[in-house]
């Protein structure tokens, strides 16, 4: 599904048509033929009236009527074919665009995701691509039909009567102007009206507008009558003329609509282009260092004078230096927005440091292949996010070929085994969208288990036990320590969750206040004392 636009660095809706070239050519041709069939009918009707009736030639009239019938049948066949080609093309390109956009979104790092936000990305992936391929469909259906209808009607009118057809040349631009004017005036009214349904203003829906415009013009049939003054014209020809006039005006209305569709497509295309122009800011190096599980440093994490800020705002991590030996447990504590999560987000390179360096296994994280680096880190995010599917599917994310034993082991460590075992389907118990069929505490334990499958040498728990009671939380920590032996980072608001850690980092609005053990901090760090005392005086039940 790789597309040309990736090299060109720009999103071009046109490039998506390449795959469907034959449809793009055939579709409009069919619609043109359909238009021709429409143009011919009035011409033949004129013949019936001018030749058939005066000469009282029954067989001629029947013959000509059959011709009209056949032309209409042909027109219908071409219309259906044209429709099919148009829908195959437009829906196909819609699918291809969505695939490409989604694939591109998946290359983003956290900063790019921050930049756009979920709803913007969602909107562009769904609605903007939709607008483009819907527009393409409308264009494909009309691009040839309109000129053929216009030109065809004009030519046929000229065949019938040159002088009279001159009127079309004069009137068409005026009509075009009126159509645009009406459309332009009505369009804001419609969008405005959609926004403010409350105010009792007069609004018509878009469809009604179109219908009314067409009808208004279809009634302007009187021009022909005036022309008769200028010279001889037959009744049949006049009738044909009136028909051509109607066709021309409806083609002009369609043309005006295509123009509005086109501008809307342009806007959508620009929005999607913004997505493609935004490139992943965190990439793997050309020749990545391989992670060596046999190395004595495997699982070691170091922060060397690390500073970090989100897109040039105030530093949220200031001069952090710490060495974490393999198997150690590190606690990080501080108020909301103090930068706790930002510290752990630097280890799997969700964000890159502003200055200083983060080392994993003795090497700067920037030297590794990003995928390999994230493979050795088990991450439990702050928001317990589960995905539609089954428990097994959710728990196999770190290791697609995980055995039941491995999953059960992870569930047991995460203190989730007991409630999962109660489900008759066990691991195949369904997970509803957003994990809504689990309680907050259950979700947290499942997301912890998900991170544990495959024994990651580094484990990050980002404030992910807040919904667990103390007994469960304590059991969980003990199980991780004894059964996993991973280097573990625990971000928490509660001192009880981190007091057994080998080292504890105390942060306060971006600053590293202190680093030490629970006992050391109780002695010398006033913020830590304050937190600890307040929580242990009135402990939550």
């Amino acid at each position, binding site marked *: 599904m790789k597309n040309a636009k990736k090299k060109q660095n720009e999103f071009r809706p046109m490039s998506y048509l390449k795959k469907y070239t034959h449809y793009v050519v055939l579709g409009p041709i069919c619609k043109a033929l359909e238009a021709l069939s429409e143009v011919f009918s009035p011409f033949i009707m004129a013949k*019936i009236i001018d030749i058939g*009736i005066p000469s*009282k030639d029954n067989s001629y009239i029947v013959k000509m009527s059959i011709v009209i019938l056949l032309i209409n049948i042909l027109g219908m066949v071409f219309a259906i074919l044209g429709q099919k080609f148009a829908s195959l093309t437009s*829906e196909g390109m819609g699918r291809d665009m969505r695939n490409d956009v989604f694939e591109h979104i998946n290359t983003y790092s956290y900063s790019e995701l921050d930049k756009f936000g979920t709803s913007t990305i969602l909107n562009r992936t*769904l609605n903007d691509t939709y607008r483009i391929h819907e527009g393409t469909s409308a264009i494909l259906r009309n691009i040839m039909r309109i000129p053929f209808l216009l030109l065809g009607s004009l030519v046929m009118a000229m065949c019938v009567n040159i002088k009279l057809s001159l009127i079309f040349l004069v009137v068409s631009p005026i009509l075009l102007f009126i159509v645009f004017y009406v459309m332009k005036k009505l369009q804001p009214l419609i969008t405005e009206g959609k926004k403010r349904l*409350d105010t009792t203003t007069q609004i018509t829906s878009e469809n009604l507008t179109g219908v009314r415009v067409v009808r208004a013009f279809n009634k302007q049939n009187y021009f022909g009558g005036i022309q008769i003054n200028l010279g001889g014209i037959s009744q049949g020809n006049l009738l044909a003329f009136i028909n051509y006039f109607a066709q021309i005006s409806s083609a002009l209305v369609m043309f005006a609509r295509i123009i509005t569709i086109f501008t809307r497509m342009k806007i959508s295309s620009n929005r999607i282009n913004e997505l493609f122009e935004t490139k992943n800011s965190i990439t793997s190096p050309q020749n990545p260092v391989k992670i060596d599980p046999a190395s004595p440093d495997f699982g070691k994490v170091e922060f060397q004078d690390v500073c970090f800020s989100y897109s040039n705002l105030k530093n949220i991590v200031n001069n952090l230096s710490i060495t974490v030996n393999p198997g150690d447990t590190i606690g990080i504590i501080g108020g909301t927005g103090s930068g706790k999560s930002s510290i752990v987000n630097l280890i799997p390179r969700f964000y890159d440091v502003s200055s200083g360096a983060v080392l994993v296994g003795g090497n700067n994280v920037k030297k590794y292949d990003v995928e390999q680096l994230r493979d050795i880190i088990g991450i439990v995010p702050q928001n317990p996010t589960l995905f539609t599917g089954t428990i097994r599917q959710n728990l196999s994310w770190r290791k697609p070929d995980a055995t039941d034993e491995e999953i059960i082991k992870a569930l047991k460590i995460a203190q989730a085994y007991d409630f999962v075992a109660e489900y008759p389907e066990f691991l195949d118990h369904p997970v509803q969208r957003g994990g809504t069929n689990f309680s907050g505490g259950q979700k947290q334990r499942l997301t912890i288990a998900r991170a544990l499958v495959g024994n990651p040498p580094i484990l990050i728990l980002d404030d992910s036990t807040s919904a667990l009671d*103390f007994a469960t939380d304590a059991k969980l920590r003990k199980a991780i320590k004894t059964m996993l032996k991973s280097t573990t980072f625990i971000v928490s608001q509660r001192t009880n969750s981190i007091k057994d850690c080998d080292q504890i980092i105390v942060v306060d609005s971006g600053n590293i206040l202190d680093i030490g053990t629970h006992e050391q901090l109780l002695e010398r760090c006033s913020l830590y004392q304050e937190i600890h005392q307040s929580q242990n005086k009135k402990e939550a039940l």
Partner: protein
Amino acid sequence: MSENSQMSSELVRQKETRHFKSRFMKNRSAFQIVSKVFKVARPYRQYLYLTFLFDFINSIAELLVPIFLGKAIGAAIGKGNVNFKLITIYSLVMIGCVLIAALFNALGSLTINAYNYKATYKIRDLLFKKINSLPLSFIDTTSHGDLLSRMINDIDVMTDGFLESFAAVISGIVSLVGTLVAMLILNIPLALIIVTLTPLSIISSAYIIKKSKKYFNLEVQSLGDLSGYLEEYIAGERVVKAFNHEPESVKDFAKINQNYYKIGEKSQFYSNLSAPTTRFVNGIVYGVVGLFGAFQAIRGIISVDIISTFLSYANSFGRPFNEISSNISDIQSSFAAAGRVFNILEEPDEVSDENLPDLLSCDGNVSIKNVNFSYIPKVKLIQNFNLEVKQGMKVAIVGPTGCGKSTLINLLMRFYDVNSGTISVSGNNIKEITRSSLRNKYGMVLQETWLFNASIRDNIAYGNPNIPLDEVIAAAKLAGIHEFIEKMPNKYDTMVIEGGNNLSQGEKQLLCIARVMLLKPPMLILDEATSNIDTRTEMNIQNAFNNIMHGRTSFVVAHRLSTITNADIILVMNKGNVIEQGTHQELLDKKGFYYNLYNSQFAKV
């Protein structure tokens, strides 16, 4: 334990939904709904009459155009044999007719729009008034909070659908009847031909609409799958990255996307087929009318101008059918929406308390005697509950999540009525006083805070400008939020943005406490914070709670050991019922549910 209560509350919700559905799925015929709309919109009926009148004039004018057009053509008998004078007159008349038709067409759509908007505005108004008088039990069981958004949506759908359908139906009927009459007057055989051919157009468009509707519904479903997947994975994209799950999610997306493509392609094909089909049918009618018209002209039964008139009529006769049938799905969904709206409008109101006296003075004594309550008869919740609370006592409510703490609040504030037994405040049965006077006696601070888009001052003073600023400040000081407000850009005039980020959850809660401080109610209902609030704010809230509870009867949903041990009475709730009550020590001695709860939560590992 918490899993069990989770399951049981899930069960309750399911049953409630079923119960609700059986009540809500009252089917009404389209006729019933239309007559209800007409009844509500009776004050605006003159707009409806005007619309009929305008459409009638429009239709007559429209019908005259082809007649004069035909006459003009008839005046051009052949080359060099043209009656200029007549043609000029006919042309001018035609121009006049066209202008009149356009004018009345516009007038007709103006009046029908006015009718629709006035009618739906009134229905919306009735509906919002209705919400205030509906019993809470209805709102709770209806849709878990999205009642309002669904109603707004229903009204929008109803407005849109009625707009389309009323306009189409009225002008359609008028022009259909008009055309038919005109055709019958002009030439009966040709009229019959057109009438017999029109079903062709109806059948063909009905077929296409049926097909396209089927695929449209499928498309909506599969679009739901697609957008659901996108929503889930884009929102969870950070997790996807953390687990290197990108290739799998791209692959899965391509599958769902392909499925949507297959259905979408068919749906688009069918939905765009109606225009060419209509053109085709019109073409056929055109040919047939030409054929028979020509035969009749040869026999001298009609003149050529009649043929041209009929060619125009053939088009306008079929048009109303097409318009109505292309709007049919909108019309259907608008009727469904209107049906739901009227179902709500016709729900019985909360039992009126107009004739009851207000609760004037209140000392804070609350007495609960033999109370039984359940939301639905089959699932028993509170059974034989007795409680005596004296003025100034502190009642702590404890229990696992979902144990039914909110049920108790619902009963105390009379959002629901007890099934049997009595609740009295200051010796007054709460069923025998007005709800508003009862609720005024309670100050309520929940975790879900309710602030409105106004200044901090207005939020504390509940929008009452008569309360002097120093009283507001005094309340804020008691709530411990005064210093914080002083640091805000405009101090007490800083605007609170609903859902905005200028206040944290804890600060919002402190504002609500200040509000209660100002009202000085004799009784309190408080909900202690559990998590996601940092320690300092938590301490502030706790201090503010202690201030506010002083000397007041208070019911506290408690999470903190200190609150619980200090409480005069602890109510232990589980699975919707109060299972134990007493002081901390009494309950520990009892070695029951509370004892286990307490020990399991504080046991050291």
